[in-house]
Each structure stands twice: as C-alpha cells, then as structure tokens.
C-alpha cells in the first residue's frame, strides 16, 4: 500500500477567544489516501475550515501530530502538492482571471508551459471567455469557478475545497461539482470538500462528520 497522503493522530486545535480557550478541533485521528473523495460535513462553527487548514499545513495543531508521508514537510505542501479553495473570495484584484489561475504555477516555480496549463484549467470550468477579465467584473459563481481552476492548475495530489458551492444556487453548484469531479475522474488526486449540503456530500465516496470539533470518519483508522 502506498504511503498515505495525510496521517493525523489526536490532532487538536484550540483558539483563545477573549482569554478563554475554544477547541475548534478536538483529538481528530484520520488517514487520507490517494484518490480519496471525502465530504466534510458539519454545522457552522463545527471546525471544518480549521481542519482543512490543518490538513494544508497552513495551520499547526495545538496537540497531536499530523504528517504527510507521501508529500513531505508541512512547509513544502502549498502550492505544488496541495491546493486550497477558500470559503471566502480569494482572487487577487489587480490580476486578470488568467493571471490569477497561473499564480500557483508561478509561486511554485514549476517549469513547463504555464500558458497551456492555464488554458486547460480554464477550459475545465468553461472560463475561456473570461480569461482577460478582472475579478471585479465577475459574478460570485464565476469567482468560485476561477478559484477551482486555480486549484487544479498545478495538478496537486490533494485538493481541499472549503464550501465551494456554499454561495451558489443549487444548479450552479451542481455544475461546478460536475466539472470538478469530471476532471478528477480516474486521477490519483484526492479531494476533501467541506459542505453543509447533503446533496453535495452524497456525490463523494466518503463522508466525515464534524460535531463541535469532534471528527467522525465513519471508518476506523
């Protein structure tokens, strides 16, 4: 069996809120493999975003240990090996859609044909027409699609998407998910997708649930 993408043991993340500690994630233990499709569900404030950030190495656990056996150290994950799609709009305003999508490639210093890769990613989400537009000229749904395109452009081993369809109407959300899953079909890239929407969760192979920071993976580690 190949190395796991992520191995987490008793991972906890506690924030200080006005002096008193708040545990956003408590003692989470899980393992993520190549090609996994996981829906992360839970109510608002249950710790989904926190957990995704821990998975991306963007945040450090307050307790427990998290490792990326197949990927490397926490500092080397972004943007080449893991891609994040944020819950909030996260495009750079002064850059065009194409430039925004190219950013992970430029930041990771990846060789190869950047233009070709960007065009391909844009095409995946039917964004070719918008390549030269600025973010302020886009609708909310278009912004989310660009963020998706930016996530897949570097062919990462793991994509972490934080409520990518949260702000979209159902049909649009479904279309976006179709495009993403279609793109990933048959590839080794793993996907973890946080959502409130059971309909979205249904389309994933596994569902992990967060309740007040407690993670239930549905399968024993």
């Amino acid at each position, binding site marked *: 069996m190949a190395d796991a993408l992520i191995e987490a043991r008793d991972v906890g993340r506690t924030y200080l809120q006005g002096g008193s500690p708040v545990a956003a994630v408590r003692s989470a233990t899980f393992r993520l493999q190549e090609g996994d499709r996981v829906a992360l569900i839970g109510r608002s404030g249950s710790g989904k975003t926190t957990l995704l950030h821990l998975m991306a190495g963007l945040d450090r656990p307050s307790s427990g240990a998290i490792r990326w056996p197949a990927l490397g150290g926490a500092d080397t994950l*972004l943007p080449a090996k893991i891609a994040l799609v944020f819950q909030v709009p996260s495009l750079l305003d002064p850059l065009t859609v194409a430039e925004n999508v190219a950013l992970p490639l430029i930041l990771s210093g990846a060789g190869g044909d950047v233009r070709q890769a960007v065009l391909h990613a844009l095409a995946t989400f039917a964004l070719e027409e918008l390549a030269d537009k600025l973010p302020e000229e886009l609708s909310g749904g278009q912004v989310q699609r660009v963020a998706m395109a930016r996530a897949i452009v570097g062919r990462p081993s793991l994509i972490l998407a934080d409520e990518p369809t949260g702000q979209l109407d159902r049909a649009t959300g479904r279309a976006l998910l179709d495009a993403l899953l279609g793109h990933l079909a048959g590839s080794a890239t793993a996907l973890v997708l946080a959502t409130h929407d059971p309909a979205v969760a249904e389309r994933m192979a596994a569902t992990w649930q967060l309740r007040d920071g407690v993670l239930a993976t549905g399968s024993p580690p």
Partner: protein
Amino acid sequence: MIGLWLAGQVRWHKGRLAGTVAGIALTVAMLAVLGVFLDQSTMTMTRRAIAGVPVDWQFQLAPGSSTPALAAAIGKAAKVAVLHIAGYADVDGLEAHSGGTVQTTGAGKVLGLDAGYARDFPGQFRLLLGSLDGALIAQQTAANLHVGVGDIVTIHRPGLASALVRIDGVVDLPNADSLFQAVGVPPGAAPQAPPDNVILLPLASWHRLFDPQAAVHPDSVRTQLHVGLVHAGLPSDPSVALMTVQGAARNLAARSAGSGVLADNLAARLDAVRSDALYAKVLFLFLGAPGVLMAALLTLAVAAAGGSHRRRDQALLRVRGASRKQIMTLAAAEAGCVGIVGGMLGLALAVLAVRALFGLASSVITPAGAAALLAGLLLAQVALLLPAWRDARDRTVVAARLAIGPERPVLWQRIGLDGMLLMLSAVVFWQSWSSGYQVVLAPEGTPATSVEYQAFLAPVLLWLGAGLLTIRLCRFGLVRGRAYLARCLRPIAGALAGVVAASIGRQHRRLTQGVALIALAFAFATSTAVFNTTYHAQARVDAALTNGADVTVTGTLRAPASARLAALAAMPGVNAAQAMQHRLAYVGNDLQDLYGIDAGRIGEATLTSNAYFQGGDASATLARLAQTPDGILVSEETVADFQLQPGDRLTLRLQRAGDGQYHPVSFRFIGVVREFPTAPHDSFLVANAAYVARQTGAGGAEIVLLRTGSAPAQVAEQARKVVQDMPGVKVSDIGQVQQLIGSSLVAVDLGGLTRLQLVFAVLLVAGATGLILALGLADRRRAFAVLTALGAKPRQLAAFLWSEALLLFAVGTSVGIAAGFGLAWMLVKLLTGVFDPPPEVLDVPWAYLVLLIGVALVSVALAVLTALRETDVPAVQRMREL
C-alpha cells in the same frame, strides 16, 4: 451619538487620525513660522537700514530764522534723540605751504560743527590721523594740499581777508554725499558731487571766521540742524515706517512755515529699503509656500487613505437609518476635532521652531498665527469632509468595491492641462526674462511699490505642470510599458516579475499619486537646497567683493600695508596673500580709484568672478592684462566718455612720489571691468602694479588681501597685531562686512528660514515616501493574505513589496530632483536683481542631496520591513479577517 462615533473613530482609525493630525500640525506650524519669519526679517531689514543712516534729518534754515525756535518746532513734530547745529560756508579755495612749494585748491567748503556732533553722529567721519578736537581736514584735501596734523592751511574767504587754521586731525567723510547734499532740491534733479576740499571747524571758531562772511555774502553761508530721531517706536514694515516719518516731516513743514527746508535722509533710506523688503517677502513666501502645499497634500493623502474603512462605516450607518445629513454632521465633527487638535499642535510646534531657529521667544499669536490656525481647520474639513461627502453621494456598498483597472483619462489629461501649464510657465518666464528680471518695482519718491508677482507664476506653473506631466507619463508607462517594467523588475522579483508588473500596472492610479507626491517632495527639497546654497555662495561673493578678500589690510600711500606683506603672509591660517595698490588717478577732470595688481596672481588671494569683467571671462581678461605691461581695464562709463577702442592709448594723471604732483602717464586700454574687490560701484581703473610703481616711483601697495584657511575673524585679529604700529592701517574681515551690507537683500540672513526649510524638506521626503508606501502596503494586506494562503514564501512576498517600493522611490526621486534643479535655476534667474554680480552656476549641495536620498531610502526600507513584519501573522488568521 457624535461622542460615540468619535470614540469609535479614535479606537479603529488611530493611524489615519494621527497621520491627519500630524499633517495638519505640520501645515499650521510651517505657515505660522513663515509668518513670524516674515515679520522678523522685515523688522531686521528696517532696523538695519535705519541704523545705517548717519543723520536722519538735515533741516536747512532760511536766512534770518531763529535756530532755537526751529529746534523747538522739530522737537514738537517728531521724537528727537539728538540735535546739533552745523554751519556750511563756501570758500574760494584753500592753500598750504610745504617743503618750499605752494599747493592751492579750487573752491571748497568749511563746516562748523557744535560740541558733541562727532559723538552723536559717529557715522559722519572716520578719524585717520590726529584727534577729533579742533580743526579737521578731509583726507583727499589733505592729500591735495600735502598737509598733515600740525600744518597750517589758509582759507580764502570770498570778499574777506584769508584766514589761517592749524590742522588737528585728518578724517575720512564716508557720508559726504548726504552731508553736502543740496537741501530743497527736488528728487531726481542732477545729484551734486560732494566737494573735494573740505575743512571742519568747531562751531565757535567757524562763527568767528564766517559770521563776517555772512554779512558780506549771505548766500555763501548756511546753517543746518542735524537731527537724530528716536527709532524705537518706528513700525517694522518699511512702507509703514516711511509713512510715519513722512508724516512727521509734513508736520514739521507746517510748524516751520517757510523758515527752512528739510532733507529727510531717513525717509529716503526707508524708501530705498522698501523694494528689498518686498523682495524678501516674496522670496520667503516663495520658498515656504511649496512646503506648506506639500504638507497639505500629504494630509489629504493620509485622510483619503482610510477610504475603504470609511465607506464601510458609512454603509453601516446608513443601514441603521442615518441620513446623509447626519453622516456629514458626524464627519464634520470629526474634522473639527482633528483640525483643532492638529492646529494647536502646529502652533506649539511653531513656538518651538521659532525659539530653536531664531532664538526668539516670539509669540505666534499674531495675525499670521491666527491665519495659520484657520488654514489648519479648513484643511481638516477639506481632508475629511470631502471624501466623506463624495462617498455619501455616489457610492453604494456594492460600488465601493475596488477602484482599479481601466478607466477613462481624467479631464485634465484629455485637455492636456500639464502641457498648457508648462507652456504658460515658459511664456511667463520668457516675459520676465525679456524685462531683465525686474521683479520688484519701487519707483523712487512714491510710497507705492509694486511686485511683479506674476513673474513668480513661472516656477509655480512649472511645479504644477511637471507634477501633472509626471502623473501622465507614469500612467502611460505603467499601463503601456508593462512588458518593459516586468523586465526591469526581474532582478528583484524573479519569476514573479510579470505578475508584479501586471499588478503595479493595474494600480497605476495609486502608484502614480505616490510617485507624484514623492517627486514633489523631492523637488521642493532640492530646489530649496540648491537655491539656498547658491544664495549663500552669492552672499559670500557679495561680501568678498565689498571687503576685497577674506581679510583685507588697508593702509595708506605713506603707510602701505605691503610693508608687512611677508609677516602677514606668514601668519597661521593664511593660505595666500597678495598686495594691491590703491591710488587715485585723474581721467580727464574726473578723479577715479586706480587699483594696481599683479594680474597673474591676484586670484590667489581673492575671488575674481567672471561677472566682474565684460566678456565674462576673468582668467582671459587678467591674462591679457598680465601680458600688457601698460594695459588698463576701465569702466563702461569711461569707455563711453572717451570713445575708447581696444588698444587705444589712455593718458591719466598720477601722483608721483618725488614731488607729490600729478603727472601724465600713458596706458593702453585693453578691457572693461565692472566690479573689483574693494572697488566702488561707480567708475574705477585696474592696471599692473609694476607699471604703476615704475611710473609713480612709489612701489608700495596700500592694500594686502588675505585668503584664509581658518576663521577670518581670528586671522584679522592677528593681522591687527602685525600692523598695530602703522598709523591709519585698518583690518577688516568678511564677516564684519557681511553684517554691514545693510539694505542689500543678499545680506538678509536666510539662515533661519532655510534651516527650517531644509529640516522640513527632509521630514516631507521621509514622510511622503514612507507614508505613501505604508498606506499602499496597508491596502495590500488582503493580497498578501491570499498570496500566503496560496503558498507564497516570505521571499516572494518581499519581492512584491520591494518592487513596488523601489519603483516608487526611483521614479519619484529622479523626477523630483530633476524638477528641483529646474526650479532652482528659474528662481535664481528670477532673482537676478538681488544678486550683484549674478551667480554663474548653481551651487549644488551634494551632501544635503545625499542625505535626502539616504533618508528617503531609509524610510522606504522601514515601510517595507514594517509591511513584511505584518506578513508574519499567520495567513489563516488573515484569511479570516477578509
């Protein structure tokens, strides 16, 4: 509600509020200090000018008038400090016997002065030999008659027997022009040359000799009352002081009702100083105004920077039902508080600055101070209210999204305002150029002065036009030149260069404003500094021209300073010493000063500026003189009077040492001299000392010029010891002279103002660069959060920051310095009338410029490093703040 709002503003917008307050404080301080300085400098100018008047009023009595009655009338018309009687008698000639020969002169004057005259009017004579008690003879008369202390002079009185007097002292009459002026002659009439032959007697002796003459020839004897007025209460503005003095004079005219005429020397001097005072005012305003403007612009920039926050606050207020009027009231209240705090702070700063720079405990509670405060309040309203009003008017929360990307060129760009301003500047400048830079006009005899203020429009327009042009070019460069920009940024930004260039290009508005502000600050600093150094160098040239050199030792024909040349040259601190003859020579009937020099070496000890000579080439002219043993340089008037062509022979009469008589000596005219160290402003001659010595048999040189390496005053002190046993030999240093040149504007000490300006300019440059970057970078927090979350390394974030910062710095600095030089050049040209001779080149304050660039670099670095420290906050945290 207002209180709550203000508390909220203070809590959430500390930085912006503090910045706005600081900007307003700086603006107010600058204005107030400028006001104090203007008042102070006009006051100093007026005081100095007045102090330079030896006798304020000369009242000439009509024959038969009562002296005590008129003295009383003068006392009633004005506040009199001292009053003395002076008798004037015309005589047919003077005669003296010496060494078996008889010397006679033409017509002359004998003055009778009462006791205490010399004490109360010390400016009237300078004792050269003997004592001031008894009969005195003017230096030139003594030379003409070959007499000294103890000799007898015969006075030929018209219609009476000759009288004899024994000479007790020889004096120089530095103020002869006004002492012997024709009282009652309308101004503008041909001025009378002062008499060559003058004897001064105690009043009692004078009455004994000339009361009989008055009986025979009443019109050959006159009595004047010489008055020194109390100066303490005179207004500090020369124009106002002039009116006060003229009022007193009119009062006297009414009281004396035809029993005499007044020569108002004080009024004449005040009249003359008015134009200088106005020049000074214009100049100070001109030097100060851009600084004030810069401070105001910076304030506006800081205030506007909080835009997005403010819009959000406003949107929230509106959501909660606040009307636009209420929102504006809140903004106005905020602006009022900021204005008052900033204004008070500014005034306090001004008090400190005034104390530190001028050593004055001067109050800033003057009309100027009040105006400054008012300006501060106004600035606060404009800075805070205007953007709030604009937001309230046309921005919805949605439209408040970032204003970037392609926009239509603004109105001024479409109509080409920058080009128009620059053209206008050139036209105005050309106009004042063609009128010979006569910026200040003060027609003599009228109380009205006029300043061609529009001449100063040229640099103002240049400043504005250059600013706008910078904005246009930047915009163009950033938008169109993105590929080139990316190439330029590659060394700093590496692979990110393209992205950085794109980002910079799309935010060209913010960047361009930054560049323009930095450039303007640099232009202000550079022009002030360049102008200042040039001005100081010129003040030095002026003083050197008057004094002759750093230290000048002046002797007489009989006691030539050159006798001690070796000892003087050997003193510590002396870098070079040169002897220079100072003789008198008749050019036709005109007696002129003749300077005999070693043309090849005179430049070692004193400054020989190109402006001194026609043709503008000092070294060529002096070389020509050195090659022509009998060559002579003469003034333009002499060339015109004698229709001289280069190479023509010119015969002068020089005094020979053997017989003391004037004998013809032939010279060859080789050039025109306009100014020369120690020479008077009117006609004079310059020739080779060796030739003059050979022709006159007198090899000594009256003057020794010293160039010093250490403080001139100290060297002068030593020199006095070297020559202390030589009668009549005087030592002066350049510092003394600088204080003495009274009415010349160059003598006005710009020191205080320029020190303030230079400090202020450094602050502005630091503020502008640091602030623009800090504000810009603060706006970029979100971008950095996104970049970090995407996995950008600190190195990559730094590249982003440094690229932007260095671009701003490089463009702003270079444009600013270039514009600063242009401005300084224009200013110096416009003020040509102030400089005599005008400067040949701009003096560049390299050290200051280096300091300025250094300060700007440090503040760039500080801004970037501060912004980089911000990026240490974990990206997750940042993302949540979005």
